[in-house]
């Protein structure tokens, strides 16, 4: 697991009390050799973890590019459009998670 992915996990974990917008589902970001980031909204508050587990939706994206969306360096939607290399499971969850990521990015900037 990379330090970058760990940093993203910590950033998201600070907002785990908020509604992730995905219902009772699990979304996983698969960053290849850098590891995975799992957002588990079946628990309240949500669990943010870098331990691998099955998910309802797996989004393949490199860690530095995911960081662009989470930091607000790039609009979240545009980052997903350009950098997501694959979506497995329920693809709609990859859209439903975006308002949460946008919110994290906005609060990180303020």
């Amino acid at each position, binding site marked *: 697991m990379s330090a970058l992915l760990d940093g993203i996990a910590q950033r998201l974990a600070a907002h785990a009390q908020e509604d992730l917008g995905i219902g009772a589902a699990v979304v996983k970001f698969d960053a290849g050799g850098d590891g995975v980031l799992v957002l588990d909204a079946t628990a309240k508050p949500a669990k943010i973890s870098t331990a691998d587990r099955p998910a309802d939706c797996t989004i393949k994206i490199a860690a530095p590019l995911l960081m662009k969306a989470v930091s607000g360096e790039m609009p979240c*939607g545009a980052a997903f*459009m*350009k950098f997501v290399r694959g*979506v497995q499971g329920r693809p709609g969850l990859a859209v439903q998670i975006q308002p949460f990521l946008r919110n994290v990015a906005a609060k990180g900037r303020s």
Partner: protein
Amino acid sequence: MDTIAPQGPSANADRLDGFVHKFIKNAWYVCAQAREVEHAPLGRRLLNQPILLYRTGAGKVVALHDICPHRFMPMSKGRLVGDKIRCTYHGSLFDATGTCVEIPSQDSIPPKCFLRAYPVVERRNWVWIWMGDPAKADPALIPGENYLGFGHEDYSTVDHRYRLVKGRYGLCNENLIDDTHISFLHLGQFESGGRVHTMPEVSQEGPWIKSRWFDPHEKISPFFHMLFDVDYEIAPRALVGHFHLPATHVVWIEMYNPKAPQEKPRVLRVALAFTPETETTTHWFWAESRNFRQKDAAWDAFASDTSWAIQDQDFFAIEAIEALLQQNAELPEEVSFKADAGIMRARRVMNQIIRQEGGQ
């Protein structure tokens, strides 16, 4: 030794006729998003003419020539007095028809003291203006709002936006008609790059030039998996483009369920209107709607952001070409490909109309 014949500005000007930059006046153009026009003066240059737009107290949109006939002060710098506009320089007051009703320094009003009024029609998101002969301004010529995707009961509007593009409207039109750039300028977003090898069907019906590209076995990109909320690896997909002369486009993507292709497809519909500001700059109006995931804020944001990001790539190309055209460089003879059939048809028809109008 090969030589290059010297070319001056006039030679290039002739060659650029294909890149339509002259104006068709007798047509409806979008002049503003409805939400831009308020009870306050808005100045906007359209087809090289300065136009004043504002909304009356009753909500009616007014379009007047934005030049005071007294000393040519822009009227949009003035202020509204009820539904009338007062010139900020010497105080002349004009009503919503452009009639001068007061000159503070004298009692009489010269007959030539008026502002030209332009026909305008507001249709949901957009305000349309007729810059040519007012007697020919038939609102029935405006593309229907259901056709554009506004207010259609099966569709919800995602968003609508505006940008001033530093490129002639002919380049904007051709970007929309041209399908084959998608495989390169937008590589990886729309599809996987195979589409350039197939030809669209092109036809003309009245003022519409239509193209339809269909692939029964399209490899669906991750972006489309998310955008259309589908998990198909391979699916039938169509890209349809309708160009309503001279500057309105409706483009839509049909995504079919490969297991039930007879079902109604998921459709993402984009309406675009390009209104010349000058010969080399264009007001670009965009609106998008869809027939699935209706009124879903997460999809609205995703579709809006991504559509605009894709258009940023188009702006990049259009503005790069326009910048080059303005360098007055020696241009090679333009080469067109088989896939440019729609563009060539549009050029022919538009140039024909421009010639009929007298080539303003």
